[in-house]
């Protein structure tokens, strides 16, 4: 305990003495502040209090000095630990309270946004607290574990709950700044949000009702299609089963809008199909695609693969011996399916429905492109912010409506379905064969799935094709100009990236490559805590970390601008805010993947390592990490790809300096420059495929080298690689 605590006291002093307490205008990493440490803006806590007589810096300094004193004394270790806990809590509490309260003060040097010094000092206090707790064995088994728990709690609190609380507060705010519930209730329950006039002859329903209808329809549609695909893939002799599985990879590498754009190329006013229908049957060209139909179609196309992936597992999980038992009791195949297999799949089907439901609610790209007059919550939130008058409190109210729906679905999914799976893969070799489908059902599946699969392929084909067409519907000549405009390179004097997309493309790659390892790290470490450690409040901890899963991207977006646009934590306009947003939005997927992988790892391996004198950190590094290779890879790939394709949160957080690919594409779509938007999407898809292949080769080669080493364990996980992909992300 002494060693760890001494280390953190030293780091605390570093933060108090050398690092600028407040955020510096020139940026921390430029280190220009180091040249003028005594300036008011750059001064550390100690310099602030010594040079500028700012008394409010004394408490943390005194606390840190006291800690140093305590550590030097030779007192009872238990007492020391208690003192560390008290000091850590006081220090952390003081720094946080001070950061918020001092905002009112006139004396602030800059605008009061905290900087590196405050950050390092807070963590030093936090770790003094957790080190003390570790000694008292209050939580976790050693200082590393308690420190890790503390860190994750602080991070999730700061970057998930703190911003969400801003949305709540803003929603309850009166124009004059006071808070009250009456206005909030009247606004959130108003016809503006929940109007149902479209049922009674009026023209528009409120966005919440639209969102709900769409989500239910999408949930049902994707579940039905997914089931039909899953039945074909597992219960028939269909030849191209392997190819069907490729469909499941598509949605994760598809940038938003791609499907919407492709639908426009086919069915829009200038679309191919529209043209033919017009020529052959003289059907008038219309804008029928824009509205519920178009959004619904695009959501079905986007999310069916997810349902398929979930339901493959469900359908395969029904034990063949149950079906065989039913067949031996003279039930025919239809009776077996409807009386045995289907009821066993019920929880799985409900799960697939809820996933489709949540995805649809949170979807932003498709309604933005195809919505027309059909307003849904996610786009309404966006328009409330970017509209003529930015109305953040309306955005907040709509955000809460959306959040309520998704969190409710999430809770239902966890509470109701959590422990209710009949299909389980046991260690027992379950021999036997799944019974085939009866002919009628088989043909029903074929007739829905095969056309749908072909349709999906056409959609993706259109994208590639469309990127080479001059002006869709008007000038169908072959051209490379979209690629040139977007990704042109000028070689006249040296190399110059003249294409308009380069800027956002390189930023995207940079941010995604930074976010991916961080996301994987936080996600997998959290999984490690959840699976391998026991501590008080673990279920709350788990719930907190998984909850960010249910927060739609648009809500994350507004919550971040509300929370991080003002001191004490000022991040808007930086690349950091994008990285952080990705980290906490994609973290649950890493958590799920990590939990799946860790549950396959015998716990006695960790224990054996501990027994041999390794600390939990060493165990994590030497035993667990090497055995988690595939899960780490999956988490990396997933978070990288999600960072490239996500748009809903990003669109609020980009800045001129840090523009992202997806928001660039939104801009082009809004200007009607479809060609560039499509070409850019194609490049993104190729980039992601290349990155996935590269990462897989990297790990693949490593695996070859140590093939016989991990042979057994690897075989177990290879299935788990799919796991994180299976999880949805909003």
């Amino acid at each position, binding site marked *: 305990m002494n060693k760890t605590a001494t280390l953190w006291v030293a780091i605390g002093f570093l933060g108090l003495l050398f690092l600028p307490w407040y955020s510096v205008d020139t940026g921390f990493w430029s280190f220009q502040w180091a040249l003028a440490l005594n300036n008011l803006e750059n001064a550390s806590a100690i310099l602030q209090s010594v040079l500028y007589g700012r008394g409010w810096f004394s408490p943390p300094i005194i606390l840190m000095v006291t800690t140093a004193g305590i550590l030097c004394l030779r007192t009872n270790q238990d007492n020391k630990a208690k003192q560390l806990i008290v000091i850590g809590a006081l220090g952390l509490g003081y720094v946080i309270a001070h950061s918020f309260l001092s905002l009112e003060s006139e004396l602030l040097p800059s605008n009061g946004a905290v900087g590196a010094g405050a950050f390092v000092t807070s963590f030093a206090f936090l770790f003094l607290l957790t080190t003390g707790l570790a000694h008292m*064995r209050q939580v976790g*088994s*050693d200082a590393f574990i308690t420190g890790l728990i503390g860190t994750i709690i602080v991070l999730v609190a700061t970057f998930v709950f703190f911003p969400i609380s801003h949305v709540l507060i803003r929603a309850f705010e009166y124009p004059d700044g006071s808070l009250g519930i009456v206005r909030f209730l009247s606004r959130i329950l108003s016809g503006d949000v929940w109007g149902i006039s479209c049922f009674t002859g009026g023209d528009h329903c409120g966005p919440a009702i639209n969102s709900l209808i769409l989500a239910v329809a999408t949930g049902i549609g994707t579940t039905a299609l997914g089931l039909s695909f899953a039945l074909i893939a597992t219960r028939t002799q269909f030849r191209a089963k392997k190819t069907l599985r490729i469909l499941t990879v598509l949605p994760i590498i598809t940038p938003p809008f791609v499907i919407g754009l492709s639908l426009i190329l086919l069915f829009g006013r200038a679309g191919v199909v529209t043209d033919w229908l017009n020529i052959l049957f003289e059907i008038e060209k219309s804008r029928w695609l824009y509205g519920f139909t178009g959004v619904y179609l695009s959501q079905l196309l986007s999310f069916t693969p997810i349902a398929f992936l979930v339901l493959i597992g469900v359908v395969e999980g029904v034990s063949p011996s149950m079906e065989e038992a039913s067949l031996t009791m003279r039930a025919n195949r239809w009776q077996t399916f409807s009386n045995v297999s289907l009821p066993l799949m019920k929880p799985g089907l409900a799960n697939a429905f809820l996933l489709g439901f949540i995805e649809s609610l949170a979807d932003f790209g498709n309604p933005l492109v195809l919505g027309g007059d059909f307003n849904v919550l996610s786009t309404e939130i966006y328009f409330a912010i970017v509209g003529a008058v930015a109305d953040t409190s309306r955005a907040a109210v709509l955000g809460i409506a959306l959040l309520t729906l998704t969190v409710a679905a999430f809770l239902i999914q966890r509470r109701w379905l959590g422990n209710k799976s009949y299909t389980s893969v046991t260690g027992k070799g379950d021999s036997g064969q799944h019974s085939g489908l009866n002919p009628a059902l088989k043909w029903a599946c074929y007739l829905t799935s095969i056309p749908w699969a072909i349709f999906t392929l056409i959609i993706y084909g259109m994208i590639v094709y469309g990127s080479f067409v001059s002006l869709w519907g008007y000038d169908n000549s072959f051209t490379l100009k979209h690629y040139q405009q977007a990704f042109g390179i000028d070689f006249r004097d040296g190399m110059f990236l003249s294409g308009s997309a380069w800027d956002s493309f390189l930023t995207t790659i940079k941010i995604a490559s930074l976010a991916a390892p961080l996301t994987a790290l936080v996600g997998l470490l959290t999984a490690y805590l959840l699976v391998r450690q026991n501590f008080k409040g673990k279920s709350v901890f788990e719930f907190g970390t998984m909850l960010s899963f249910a927060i739609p991207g648009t809500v994350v977006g507004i919550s971040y601008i509300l929370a991080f646009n003002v001191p004490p934590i000022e991040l808007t306009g930086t690349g950091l805010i994008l990285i952080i947003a990705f980290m906490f939005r994609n973290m649950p997927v890493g958590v799920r993947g990590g939990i799946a992988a860790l549950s396959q790892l*015998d716990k*006695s*391996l960790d*224990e*054996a*390592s*501990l*027994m*041999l*004198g*390794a*600390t*939990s950190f*060493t165990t994590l590094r*030497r*035993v667990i990490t*090497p*055995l988690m290779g595939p899960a780490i890879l999956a988490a990396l790939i997933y978070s990288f790809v999600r960072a490239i394709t996500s748009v809903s949160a990003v669109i609020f957080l980009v800045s001129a300096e840090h523009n992202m690919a997806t928001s660039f594409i939104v801009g082009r779509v809004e200007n009607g420059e479809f060609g560039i938007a499509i070409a850019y999407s194609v490049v993104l898809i190729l980039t992601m495929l290349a990155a996935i292949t590269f990462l897989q080769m990297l790990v693949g080669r490593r695996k070859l080298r*140590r093939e*016989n*080493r*991990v*042979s*057994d*364990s690897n075989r177990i996980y290879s299935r788990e690689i799919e796991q994180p992909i299976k999880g949805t992300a909003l």
Partner: protein
Amino acid sequence: MNSENASVSLSNIKKCYGTVTAIENLSLEIPEGEIVTLLGPSGCGKTTTLRIIAGLEQATGGEIYIGQENVTHQSATYRNVAMVFQSYALFPHMNVLENVSYGLTVSSTPKKTRKEKAFRALEMVGLTGFENRLPSELSGGQQQRVAVARAVILEPDVLLFDEPLSNLDAKLRRHVREEIRQIQQSLGLSAVYVTHDQEEAMAVSDKIVVMKDGAIAQQGTPTELYEQPQSEFIADFIGDANIIPCEIESTSGNRAVVKVSSTTLDSYAAKHISKDMKLSIQPRNIRLTHTYTPNSLAGRVQHSTYLGGHMEYLINTDAGDIFVVDAEMNEKYQKGESIHAIFEATKTILVPVEQ
């Protein structure tokens, strides 16, 4: 509290999982250089006790000493204790040598010492030449020995085994348990050994601790437990004894006369005679005859089984069914025959009735 030569001592240990009490007030001493076996039916708390000694679980109450040091609040990492896991828990990504020297590696022992010690440990378990194999390339018995080598390399104060043989086939089990016994004695290690196989317990232990419902039912040498069970449970669990209800007629010294249904029998009396006692006798201490003999119960053969080396009979008597093993097989009795079951007086023991 801690007696001089105990390498591990537990005093009043208690362990709760939520509302479930797994261990209740358990006190136990592991003398230096001995193997103590924890034996008992499934769920009685053997593994839990072992994990508490290891530091993998925290006791809810009570204290643990290793040597003279109070380690109650120390975590597994810092206790000088080693464990051989039921699943062996060999690290699949490390070869035999890396596995065996892991404990030295993480304590930053110089490479040379590390290698020397690892080779010595492997030699001891007879696995020289296997250094570069991976665990998946070894047989079950070999993996088992790697696990033992890995555990003893740190020269622990106490070595823990949790059902180390349960993954091996019956023949190998006998062989490996002798090896374990031999290694333990040659190194003079103290060890705690968990098993639910009583024969295995008898074979390896200096002392056996029989547990029941999270508490110690009786402890002693194998002979003591087998020959002088102090409760119905032990008599049944260790000796598979016939437990017969009886009434005590008279006692004199260490003999007692008891009445079983209408017959009087002579028996060995325990030190603490109470009113409620039952008669306990192991199946192989009952002889059968056709003719009446004193100290016997009359009955009828209900069932007889020929098992090659011995015969097994189920005899129907007024005092209930009794189970008899006849290893001499001078005469075979057929189903339905009337016979007398002679109770050998010195092997007939009184045990208190279980509440």
